[in-house]
């Protein structure tokens, strides 16, 4: 019997054949933490250990509340910087580099074939680079720092075959929302989620990141898109010399055992919108078009890349955001922000009436930036719309693609981009 990507990746990590269902003691190649690193360091100190076991395997990125929105956040960051200095953590990215799930692969830490854990649920994003990557909690991140090990159950795999054609203004975000809307937020519970099919093969790395980013909203443990030529191109440009020998492009065997195969036919599927207050409350955009929106947030680790802003500008270029609607633009990293500046995309967005915020999680977390007033509605390209997510339980959040976000900002109501 052949093996799935997940069985291969975890087997490679522990040095023997494994099958789905087994619990293994794995040794992550990378452990990612962010603003929660201060809290994690406090737990780490309770373990009675002085030194992080493998400091070179830690990646620490400040992104959740940057720049610090109050003294507690500022102290939090200070504590992290002190810990980084004390332990000699090489891969520390301060507030000026960007959102962790964008920065980690940009900086070459998403090595194909590797095992990455992170104290953030959207760590599943790096399946787009052929890595087995999954979210864990703060306490186990602290124990991973101390011991270099973590228990993981080898997941069964659910394969999603995406067929048909992507219509006008339909993209990876719509594929993910359609899947989650059809099958529910627990449709992929505990499973490794593997996307295959001709549509997936032609998607850019940026679009594949969207799919893998949303895997956790489907209940999945990790996401995966094929470790193919596009991944090879990315890895050859980004993975530093010192880690090149670790690269392995793992793919599922044709005769691998899948728990389930689901076919998702995108023919005739239009732009999708997740309605308040769950990600699986999905409707076609036509069903919700016309609802007034106070704020549009276009950014985040889900859809804050060049491809997303280029798509948005197809609609926004030369036009104005509707009166009474606030458009927030959040480039996912300094690298993206810089490219937008150099290519004039920032000026075009500013001229359209947008507020451009610094790369960071910002409005997505509800800790600062873009918090909603009572009764306000926000349409966002982020990955979660739970009640209170943007800092106010009396607000409403819709999720959609950058195309729907841009169209909505132009009209001040939820808008089908195909209608413009």
């Amino acid at each position: 019997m052949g093996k799935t990507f997940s069985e291969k990746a975890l087997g490679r990590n522990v040095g023997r054949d494994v099958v789905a269902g087994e619990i293994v003691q794995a040794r992550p190649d990378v452990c990612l933490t962010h603003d929660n690193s201060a809290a994690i360091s406090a737990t780490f100190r309770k373990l009675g250990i002085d030194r992080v076991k493998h400091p070179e395997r830690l990646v620490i990125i400040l992104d959740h509340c940057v720049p610090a929105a109050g003294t507690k956040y500022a102290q939090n960051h200070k504590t992290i910087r002190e810990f980084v200095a004390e332990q000699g953590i090489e891969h520390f990215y301060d507030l000026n580099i960007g959102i962790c799930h964008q920065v980690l692969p940009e900086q070459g830490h998403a090595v194909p074939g590797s095992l990455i854990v992170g104290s953030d649920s959207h760590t599943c994003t790096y399946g787009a680079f052929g890595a087995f990557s999954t979210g864990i909690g703060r306490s186990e991140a602290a124990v991973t720092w101390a011991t270099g090990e973590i228990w993981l159950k080898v997941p069964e795999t659910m394969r999603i075959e995406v067929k048909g054609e992507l219509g006008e203004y339909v993209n990876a975000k719509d594929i993910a929302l359609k899947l989650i809307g059809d099958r529910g937020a627990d449709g992929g519970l505990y499973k490794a989620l593997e996307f295959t099919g001709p549509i997936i093969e032609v998607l850019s790395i940026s679009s594949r990141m969207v799919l893998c980013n949303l895997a956790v909203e489907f209940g999945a443990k990790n996401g995966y898109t094929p470790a193919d030529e596009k991944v090879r191109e990315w890895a050859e440009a980004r993975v530093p010399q010192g880690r090149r020998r670790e690269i392995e492009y793992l793919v599922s065997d044709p005769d691998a055992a899948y728990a389930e195969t689901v076919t998702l036919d995108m023919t005739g599927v239009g732009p999708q919108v997740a309605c308040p207050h769950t990600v699986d409350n999905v409707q076609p955009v036509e069903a919700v078009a016309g609802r007034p929106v106070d704020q549009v947030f276009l950014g985040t680790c889900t859809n804050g890349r060049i491809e997303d802003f280029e798509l948005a500008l197809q609609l926004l270029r030369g036009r104005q955001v509707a009166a009474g609607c606030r458009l927030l633009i959040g480039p996912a990293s300094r690298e993206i922000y810089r490219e937008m500046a150099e290519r004039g995309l920032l000026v075009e967005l500013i001229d359209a009436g947008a507020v451009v915020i610094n790369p960071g999680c910002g409005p997505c977390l509800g800790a600062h930036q873009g918090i909603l007033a009572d009764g306000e509605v926000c349409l966002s390209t982020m990955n979660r719309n739970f009640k209170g997510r943007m800092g106010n339980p009396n607000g409403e959040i819709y999720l959609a693609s950058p195309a729907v976000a841009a169209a909505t900002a132009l009209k001040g109501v939820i808008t089908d981009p195909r209608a413009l």
Partner: protein
Amino acid sequence: MADSKLIEGKVWKYGDDINTDVIFPGKYTYTVTDPAEMATHALEDLDPDFAGKVQAGDVIVAGKNFGCGSSREQAAFCLTANRVGAVVAASFSRIFFRNAINAGLPTIELPQVIDQIEAGESLAIDLGRGVLTCGAGEFSFPALPPEVIGIVEAGGLVAYTRRRLGTDTAT
């Protein structure tokens, strides 16, 4: 609580897909770290009555996918801070399941029983025997995998790891 195998308390009943944003809101995740303060915010956006009225040993009973969403372990720790005895659900979200183990919070998956348990009723759980007793009767539940049972029994991952590493100086 780590050594007690018998849990007895009142049922707090909720529905499906109870996410970690309503269990412990994101706006507190970096600013509220003291367990007593965390306890006051538990389930704040779902049930404002919970934090003030929950008693030690009470049990949360919920539908499928309990604890979905953000990986924040405060969702589990704010419940242990309130001395919640256990969470019984039709299914658990993966990261919450791990965080509950790490917090020493017993999680019990019993999809076939959830509908038979009433809000406010008294419930008893014998972790050692793997039996839940409620108004509808006695129900067996499977034990946690052997690889992780020790973590819950030790009272959580920190206590467990200290023992493993030999840095445990508690008497």
